[in-house]
């Protein structure tokens, strides 16, 4: 019973309740969206979005508006721009890299402006944006984050079937009248919202871990698409809870580190468990195609 009392004791702290509430929803959204990010080989776009999140949040702070406005605006606008770039032929990773390196440079500028111009404010905001501050969420913030993240999760599940078809075989999907381009826009927009929400939990620099790591682990464990999608969300939630508990038990560890450490361990376990088998990624292709075509209604 010590574990139960320990958990009950832990949840007496309001900041931990808020962290669990927002964290769980954000983990589900990231796990679901991350599955398609990995499937569509858009991890680099996710990486770019994480850097944009930093600049957007600091631009909001430096302009004196609000961190959240800057964060969400920047993430969604850049996500849609990346989708437009991708629609005009394949998004060139050199172009993405050049653009986001500059955006990050702008972030450094806004950080300097913000910390040097406003002497009264706490200078840790920049660090919080980079590495997350899930224990610093207020009740209303946590509620907003949870609702936004759950909305993203529902939307990803709703477009799941056509998305899967469009991701596996774009040509056949568009021949079957699946709106491939529109789906690409909607999906990257959803990833942008996820990135903005996850930035508050694990920080701009680490959100790639929440997007790519659970999905990568899930894809190693199963070849069946929808099972992999839910497994990815499950692993993300396990990582989030594990990380929060570790950070609670050992206060000198930042929560973001705990979350990423659990997620990476899950990935390593999945890697070890499937190392003996023959390449699941290759075997996956044929059944994916079959299921995708069978499941999408004409």
């Amino acid at each position, binding site marked *: 019973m010590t574990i139960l009392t320990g958990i009950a004791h832990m949840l007496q702290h309001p900041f931990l309740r808020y962290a669990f509430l927002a964290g769980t929803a954000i983990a589900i959204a990231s796990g679901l969206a991350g599955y398609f990010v*990995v*499937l*569509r*080989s858009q*991890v*680099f776009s996710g*990486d770019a979005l994480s*850097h944009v999140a930093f600049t957007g949040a600091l631009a909001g702070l430096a302009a004196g508006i609000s961190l959240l406005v800057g964060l969400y605006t920047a993430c969604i606008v850049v996500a849609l721009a990346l989708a437009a770039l991708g629609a005009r032929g394949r998004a060139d*990773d*050199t*172009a*993405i*890299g*050049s*653009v*986001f*390196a*500059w955006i*990050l*440079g*702008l972030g*450094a*500028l806004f*950080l*300097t*402006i913000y910390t*040097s111009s406003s002497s009264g404010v706490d*200078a*840790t905001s920049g*660090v919080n944006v*980079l*590495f997350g501050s899930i224990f610093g969420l207020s009740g209303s913030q946590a509620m907003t984050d949870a609702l936004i993240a759950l909305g993203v999760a529902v939307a990803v599940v709703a477009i799941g079937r056509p998305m899967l078809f469009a991701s596996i075989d774009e040509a056949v999907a568009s021949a079957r009248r699946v709106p491939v381009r529109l789906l690409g826009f909607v999906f990257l927009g959803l990833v942008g919202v996820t990135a903005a929400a996850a930035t508050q939990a694990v*920080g701009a*620099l*680490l959100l*790639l*871990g*929440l*997007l*790519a*790591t659970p999905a*990568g682990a899930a*894809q*190693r464990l199963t070849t069946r698409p929808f099972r992999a999608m839910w497994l990815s969300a499950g692993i993300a939630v396990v990582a989030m809870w594990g990380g929060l508990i570790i950070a609670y038990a050992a206060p*000198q*560890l*930042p929560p*973001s*580190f705990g*979350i*990423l*450490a659990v*997620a*990476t361990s899950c*990935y390593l376990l999945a890697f070890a468990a499937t190392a003996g088998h023959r*390449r699941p*990624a*290759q075997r*996956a*292709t044929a059944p994916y195609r079959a299921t995708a075509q069978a499941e999408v209604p004409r």
Partner: protein
Amino acid sequence: MVSGGLAASAASGTALGWNIGADIRQLLALHFMVNAFRAGTIVAVVAGAIGWFMVLRRQSFAGHTLAVVSFPGASGAILLGISATAGYFAASIAAALVIAGVPRSPGGRSYSSESAVIGTVQAFALACGALFVSLYGGFLNSLTSLLFGTFLGISDGQVTTLLIAAAAALAALAGIARPLFFATVDPDVARARGVPERLVSTVFLLLLGCAAAEVSQITGALLVFALLVMPAAAAQQLTARPALSFVITIALGLAIAWLGLAVAYFSVYPVGFYVTTFGFTAYVASAIIRAAAGRLARSRGLRQAVPA
């Protein structure tokens, strides 16, 4: 000095005048600035040379990850009390080995699992960096300079280390340059001709790690792309001839590094911002030039085609 301080920066107490010679003399009067320019020159040449191959091989994501990994390397080294330079190199080279060790198969499908691995490595490395920083205790300024770069306080010893590492990396690059170029441009034919593709690409990843570690000491771990990708991306847009674009890459890299350092000296904003801004300007300008040249060539071709 011909004129007084036009854009005097209050923080460093320096003044920028109209007399360029005097400005440069003022810039080089301080030993730390001389060291900054020496380090910037070394870094720009190495980053240009290796970045040129990286852009050609489309390994930007791997390059970014190797650069980011140097952040936990440096912060871990500071936490342990050893030199940050050793931490930069150790972490980047270790990460290069991890990425090279990921089994990959020919064909596009495997790329998605490979990029998931790279993303995992990157995020976990950054999380470790956050851990080391918080274990070390509040040193906010040092954190920003690890992430976004600083040109202050580069010692003579560091310049020597950078020079030795750069010479070794460039020598190794020269050794594998021909097979690497062959394997990059036409991997199938290269494999058929017996080029050890696997070995060459592993050596290249190690060199990329080395370059990333060097660059991050100047631009910070997050802004390495400014010197690694942007000059090469700009040059490869301007010309398709390999030798010429290689030379342009190095020249652009040097110009970006020198301008960035000089402007940052006279301003309060971080050097990383200027370096990325100049790099991005070069990239955009070359894209515009390329588009204009393409339109010109097309209209000329049209005019020649009409009378025929």
